[in-house]
């Protein structure tokens, strides 16, 4: 019996409250589930599930927010993010623009890669630089990692989000990166001023994301929340995703500072007395501002070799980030202030 075809509309005299008492009589039990057919598909792998989960997040953001944007940092996680973004809306073009917060201290290779995107994929790529910071000459070399990151990344990001009136920003953060990230929701609510309140996060049940925000409030969405560094590389390998050559070993000019190998990417890096750039066979596990990003000595010059190396690794990827070497709670503090 199809009950949906019958309607007497306004003439209805039944109170919606009256049949609670005899619920058993009107209860409609769903029918039993259908068993998997004999021609069984192989179960989804771990990688398939992560991919589907991420695409679900992209589509949810596009459907539920007025002005979404995707933060694009040019690194390997961003490459995976971009790949998933394009898949989520294929054969259409992604309805979400890309935003790169440029500190002006990125590796030259990164900027060239970024600038090739609009033509290759027909993407809307926006770039924001904190002009105040630029005028003040803020740099990681003269002001140190903390000030530079705050002004040219955190403040710049907030400027760009405010200027674009974006109500959702997609980022590539993963929970396995750092302890406070491990606590963050997939859809992470930000109050006005982009503040994160880690002690009072919205509950997040199943994959049902609460996307309601007031004007001025926003959400940061993290499709890669449940990916690990190894998953990122496995996916790059499986999907043959293009990543920057900086991730693969090559002879590069570096200087050694406080145990970190810093690449001399351009003439702006002042050399200390006696410091002479040496050509070393190095690669990067993570990419950021070049004076703040330590290289590792490596022979891994292919995706397979990178993965093989990672399986042997005894340090985490963020170890190469100078900015993270503050006391343990520093990432949480930066995130509360609006850092991604």
């Amino acid at each position, binding site marked *: 019996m199809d009950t949906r075809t019958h309607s007497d509309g306004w003439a209805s005299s039944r109170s919606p409250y009256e049949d609670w008492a005899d619920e058993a009589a009107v209860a409609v039990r769903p029918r039993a*589930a259908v068993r998997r057919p004999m021609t069984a598909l192989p179960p989804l792998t771990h990688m398939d599930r992560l991919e589907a989960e991420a695409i679900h997040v992209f589509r949810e953001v596009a459907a539920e927010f007025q002005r979404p944007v995707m933060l694009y940092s040019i690194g390997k996680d961003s490459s995976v993010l971009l790949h998933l973004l394009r898949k989520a809306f294929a054969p259409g073009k992604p309805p979400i623009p890309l935003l790169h917060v440029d500190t002006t201290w990125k590796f030259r290779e990164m900027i060239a890669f970024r600038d090739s995107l609009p033509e290759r994929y027909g993407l809307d790529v926006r770039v924001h630089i904190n002009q105040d910071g630029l005028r003040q000459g803020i740099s990681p070399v003269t002001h140190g990692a903390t000030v530079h990151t705050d002004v040219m990344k955190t403040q710049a990001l907030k400027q760009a989000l405010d200027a674009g009136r974006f109500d959702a920003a997609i980022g590539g953060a993963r929970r*396995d990166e750092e302890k406070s990230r491990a*606590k963050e929701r997939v859809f992470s609510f930000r109050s006005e001023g982009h503040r994160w309140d880690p002690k009072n996060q919205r509950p997040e049940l199943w994959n*049902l994301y609460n996307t309601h925000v007031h004007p001025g409030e926003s959400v940061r969405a993290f499709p890669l929340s449940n990916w690990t560094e190894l998953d990122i590389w496995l996916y790059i390998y499986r999907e043959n995703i293009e990543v920057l050559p900086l991730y693969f070993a090559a002879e590069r000019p570096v200087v050694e500072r406080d145990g970190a190998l810093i690449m001399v990417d351009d003439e702006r890096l002042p050399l200390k007395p006696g410091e002479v750039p040496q050509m070393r066979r190095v690669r990067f596990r993570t990419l950021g501002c070049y004076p703040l990003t330590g290289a590792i000595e490596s022979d891994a010059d292919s995706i397979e070799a990178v993965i093989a190396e990672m399986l042997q690794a005894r340090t985490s990827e963020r170890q190469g980030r100078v900015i993270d070497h503050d006391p343990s709670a520093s990432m949480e503090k930066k995130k509360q202030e609006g850092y991604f």
Partner: protein
Amino acid sequence: MSALAEDTRRQIADYLHQHERKSLLRFITCGSVDDGKSTLIGRLLHDCQQLFDDQLAALERDSRRHGTQGDNIDFALLVDGLAAEREQGITIDVAYRYFSTAQRKFIVADCPGHEQYTRNMATGASTADLAIVLVDARKGLLTQTRRHSYIVALLGVRQVILAVNKMDLVGYDQGVFDAIEADYRELAGKLGIEKVRCVPISARDGDWVTRASDAMGWYRGLTLLQLLEQAELDHADDLGAMRLPVQWVNRPDADFRGYSGTLAAGIAEPGMEVVALPSGRRTRIARVIGTSGDLPQAQRGQAVTLTLADEIDISRGDVLADARHPPEVADQFAAHILWMTEEALLPGRQYWLKSATRTVGVQVSDIKHKVDVNTQEHLAARRLQLNEVGYCKLTLAAPIAFECYADDRTLGGFILVDRQTHATVACGTLSFALRRASNIHWHTLAVDRHARARIKGQTPRCLWFTGLSGSGKSTIANLVDRRLHAQGFHTYLLDGDNIRHGLNKDLGFTPEDRVENIRRVAEVARLMTDAGLIVLVSFISPYRSERDMARALFPEGEFVEIFVDTPLEVCEQRDTKGLYARARAGQLPNFTGIDAPYEVPEAPELRLDTTAQAPEELAARVVALAVE
């Protein structure tokens, strides 16, 4: 060119292939505070070699600063990632950690134990395939153990591993373990948790976590890690009938129209007859597009885009389903609700309900009972407070396609969102439809006085205080007003003096004006009770007929006449405003009690003798009557 030989390259490719194909188990750890949940996860990560050198170094540093294990590593600090958590030594929110073995990858959510963070525990449990319930061997099952097991069962987690921890502190006594196992099996049976495995462990030392231990030679089972590796994945062989909640309509150009979403159940394949719900329109699947192009079949959990044979009107929130086995469509449900916010759930108030990709208006029209999560007893309830679970009736603004939560988490689970604050205030699981969507319209819920009162969760009343000037009407009315407000009732106080400064400032104290004064106030009070308020009227209102006229404006039982009975001599002694002195001096003509009459009520609902009881006691009597 490459540093790798060709066979090494192939070995790595094989390894990657194998690694990429591992299955995934998501589980949570829960249990009471200090049962050692975080320590257990730290132990698992450590023994599965998922900790890097720099993380271990940071951990050793933190252990010295904040740790509770003396010079030993405090593994809890690994997962308690927030500054406040490390300072207070408690878990506030869920932490997700990742590790893998040769067989399987794991996502573990470490859930907080404190009752005030139950919503965060529910967050972790909602996506879990399995729960590890930790119990301190010295303490046995505690309130938190029962609460968490109840939430685990409510959210449909069917497998539990009971890990009896700190066995080293009870001398590895088998009797202790057996007793706790028996207790827990009884609880799990009551809660309907299907599979329970039990293991004795010491998370601190690692016994039976990842390695067998001589300390408990009497235990013949598997280690905790082996139990995790061998746990069955949630109905891996039972995909159900095809359901696709439409998430996004993909229309890049006039030639392509696809419906994107994640398959909630079943298998989608070209040619399959499907029905769009709630519209009921039928068509066939033309193409199934996966993440890398067209597919012959796609299954539950995959993100797909379907194109259809016919152009029918489908938008986000609709469900495409196997036409042979469509889900029911309904707008009224019985459901369990876990309330997750400070402000209580009030029946009648409207919220947004989000289920799958659909958001609709909803009222919780009735709370059948709440559940004592410690005893599973059903208790009567008018509202649901933070962390309470209730069995409720939901009335939706529009019909939705749904499944019983036990059959389908996607089409059976929902959240409630507050319309003003936009907070996620509840999660819930649909049990069954109370009626099929057919002839019931949201419009039949006219916004009448009952609807307005219901949204406030109160019964409207007009509390009419009458008595001589200086009898204590306003004093008592003010106390009543404050008390009702403090209890969450919506009130308004109409005071004679104030009304005479505004609405009635054109009126004097002649008998005609006194009648008009009362008529206006009575009408205002009636409008306010219509709006659902509890109205307090504090007026001398000396004439019986006017009080009866006012009473007649209200439905039976809504008008409550309260006679503030204070003898004239007492009022005149108090004379707080100096009015009696002026009246006696002839400066205030028509003053009630002096040269104008006061007609004593014959049958008031309440008579308050101010010479016998203090104002607070009298106010309490009024409150009791007002909210009964």
